């Protein structure tokens, strides 16, 4: 049908994953680190859907994993942002270097 197969799609997801890893290493702000984690989760989702479509087209398990990962990512983002807001209230900063103590 077309000459674009699984390898090209895996190349996109690899690039997206390592962009997220680069962001996670360089950023020191908690919200931008959370964005990097979202990019990494998205690359995993692309992998699941493309493996499902190109290698096992008669089954649907990859699609289910993608849907469950999206649900868990939503829960994770909500909890992370609640924690970030609480840290901001206690430290007046959301830089990871400034929040070394987890006393409160």
């Amino acid at each position, binding site marked *: *049908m077309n000459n*674009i*197969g*699984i*390898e*090209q*799609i895996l*190349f*996109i997801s*690899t*690039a*997206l*994953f*390592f*962009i*997220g890893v*680069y*962001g996670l*290493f*360089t*950023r*020191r*702000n908690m*919200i*931008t680190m*959370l*964005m990097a984690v*979202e*990019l990494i989760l*998205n690359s995993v*989702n*692309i992998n699941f*859907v493309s493996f499902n*479509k*190109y*290698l*096992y*087209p*008669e089954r*649907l398990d990859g*699609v*289910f994993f993608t*849907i*469950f990962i*999206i*649900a*868990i*990512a*939503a*829960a*994770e*983002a*909500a*909890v992370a*942002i*609640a924690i970030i*807001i609480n840290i*901001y*209230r206690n430290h007046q900063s*959301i830089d990871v270097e400034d929040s070394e103590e987890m006393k409160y």
Partner: protein
Amino acid sequence: MLSVNAYSIIFYLLAAFIIGNGVLAMTTRKIFRAAIFLLFSLIGVAGLYFWMHVEFVAAVQVIVYVGGIVVLIIFSIFLTQQTGKDMPRPTNTRMIFSALAAILGAALTYSLIRQYGFIGGSGDQFNVSPQRIGDQMLDYQDTGYALPFEVISILLLAAMIGCIVIALKSKPQES
């Protein structure tokens, strides 16, 4: 039906859109712009799902990521940040070594992908109608996903209650 060429061109445009916006989201120094670039990158991923004819997942991606998570991130930026200010630059050594780690990791992964030689599927039609997804999601036979579905719903409830408890403003102690 689109021709083969148009399929490839759309694919490469989507790839450039996703990766370009992803790079900008991770390197820009204004946090609000980073959130907007992330939004466009996620929309590009939804477009890639449409390109793969997985319409249900694409719709879920738009609703949950673009409509939910990015809006949540933007609200938390407004709550915690002075949006006009630039973020501090990362130190040069950290930038160089993270870029090196990312590029080497990507090269290793991509060379593995290239030489693996994926064997194509059985040639069946890939049918992801929402009806089929729903049937299998609520099926409690061996191939069904009823138990994970219930577990996820409990997890979401626990996460929502946890968010409320964590973000609750503690009252000043009365002595």
